[in-house]
């Protein structure tokens, strides 16, 4: 009888079972790792979106005068004057401002709140060109702003703004400049139904309460869960009307 190389049936069965066990073990390991990675990623995305939304809106909302600069407010939208630059009038003869801002003034979409001795007034921005003749401070550049009507005689400074609105729609915080399209500012991870803008005291707004709920995520048969708890951010207006006994 010749010697035969190879596996017997029992050996083969044992090998197959061992392989199956190992494969199952690795599959569970990989699935858990992938689930953990997915959960961690979703948590970070949601936290990032919530944080970004809160930071962006706080920067945008805090300097507003609630009675002058905040327009229609609904659960899912908030119309406002979005400030884009601040100019200090340095040469009235040429309407030259020492300007600092997120971008240069744009006559196609910007207006100007003129600050002076009387009440603040709003004028349209007709033209904006580089200016000269004044000394600037760090962070400033010179802008010559032509407005319609012309700047009042007591003008001292101007806030350049565009009309805009923020929306909580299609699972993201979105910004709509004027009549343009809505641009997402966060990843699509916010729950529309669970998120909301609320003006605190509609008749005398002192701030905006911002509720941000991340959309629930799921994995296989494990059910769906929120990666982070809903977050409420209270953003107060710096320019809210002062109580008679308040101090600056």
């Amino acid at each position, binding site marked *: 009888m010749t010697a035969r190389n190879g596996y017997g049936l029992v050996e083969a069965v044992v090998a197959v079972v061992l392989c199956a066990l190992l494969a199952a073990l*690795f599959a569970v*390991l*990989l699935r858990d*790792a*992938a689930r953990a*990675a997915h959960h*961690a*990623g979703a948590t*970070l995305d949601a*936290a*990032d979106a919530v*944080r970004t939304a809160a*930071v962006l809106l706080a920067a945008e909302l*805090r*300097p507003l*005068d609630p009675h*002058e600069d905040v327009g229609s407010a609904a659960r899912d939208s908030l119309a406002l004057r979005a*400030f884009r*630059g*601040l100019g*200090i*009038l*340095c040469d*009235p003869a040429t309407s030259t401002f020492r300007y*600092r*801002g*997120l971008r240069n003034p744009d006559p196609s979409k910007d207006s100007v709140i003129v*600050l*002076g*001795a009387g*009440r*603040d007034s709003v004028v349209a921005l007709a033209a904006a060109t580089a200016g000269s003749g004044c000394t600037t401070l760090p*962070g400033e550049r010179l802008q010559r702003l032509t407005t319609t009507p012309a700047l009042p005689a*007591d*003008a*001292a*400074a101007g*806030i350049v703004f565009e009309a805009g609105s923020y929306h909580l729609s299609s699972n993201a915080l979105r910004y709509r400049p004027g009549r343009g399209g809505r641009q997402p500012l966060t990843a699509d991870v916010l729950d529309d139904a669970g998120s909301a803008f609320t003006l605190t005291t509609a008749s005398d707004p002192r701030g905006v309460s911002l509720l941000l709920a991340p959309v629930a995520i799921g994995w296989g048969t494990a059910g769906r869960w929120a990666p982070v708890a809903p977050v409420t951010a209270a953003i107060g207006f*710096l*320019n809210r009307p*002062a109580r*008679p*006994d*308040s*101090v*600056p």
Partner: protein
Amino acid sequence: MRNRRGAALLTALLLLFLLELLAAALLVIGTQHRSMVRAQADAWQARAAAEGAVRLAAGDWSSGFDTLGFGDSATAIPAAGTLPDGTAHGARVERLRDGSFLLAGEGVTRTGAAANAFARVRTADPLRMWADFPAAFAGGADVELLAGAVLDGANAGTPPGWGSAECSPIAALERSMLLGAGPLPAVLADTGAIVVLDSTALAIGGIVHAPVHSAPFAFDGLGGLRMADLARLADHHVAGIVTPGPSAAGAVCDLSNGNNWGDPLTPSSACGDYRPLIHAPGDLHIDGGTGQGVLAVAGDLVVTGGFQFRGAVVVRGHVAWDGVAWGAVRAGGVSRLAGRIHHSDCALWRALHSPSVGRPFRTAERWWLPAF
């Protein structure tokens, strides 16, 4: 030994590599997020420090800033500081074209994150306020001088008990520059207003009719400031029936007491130099007592009980006066005057140049400006 071939080691290594790749990716993402969070926290810290610097500058105002010309700037007081966590802050003051001031604050964290904050404040201009007191009493409607009333615009008197320490020579200089050097009328009434004088009442300096509503915010403020501005500046807000009087603990004047309107009768006392700005958001009844400074009433004013006041009084509504005033009084509504009102350069000057009037206050509209 047989040469046996298998893939177990390779497979295990591959799986380990995949798991490590996953862990590394998570670590990178986590680290990036932590950096972002830290950067945002630093930015907020810097912004908070900048806003704090603005508030500090507004709260520690130097009257020297009033001499800044358009476009001039100065380092605010306190000049700069450092928070316990190492965040540095500072502010500067710049005079704007409309006379207001831009407070520019800056905060820089230990990690180098920087932020700005800007606010606009105003200060009252005492020189403009003089123009609102061109007579012992200025009324925007009918005026009745009751029996025994004495209104004296002609003698520019020094209040009893006050001397050179209280009455600066600048008072007379400012008065003659802004109101003229001659005697002033006892009553300046609006054109068309009826002035009724009891036979026993005295109007020293005479009664003059002139338009008195033409000045900005004529009876709704003072020297170009609206009543709302005065409310923001005020040391005390009062309502109802009050009997003011000095309040001190030893040698320290109690500034927190809303009924403490200074001590005009004893200028050397603890509250002798305290000349507050008092604001009444509605009607006010003063029943006796003493006070000095600036009294601004947004409603009607009733004075009884021999109340004595030294300084400036502006009333938006009606006045029923039966007290003693050194300084001047103006009221927009119908006025019934008994007691005495003496136009006094000295008392007016002391009131209009009090620290309470000279400090900065937020503009009526927006005072925080956007920072970029």
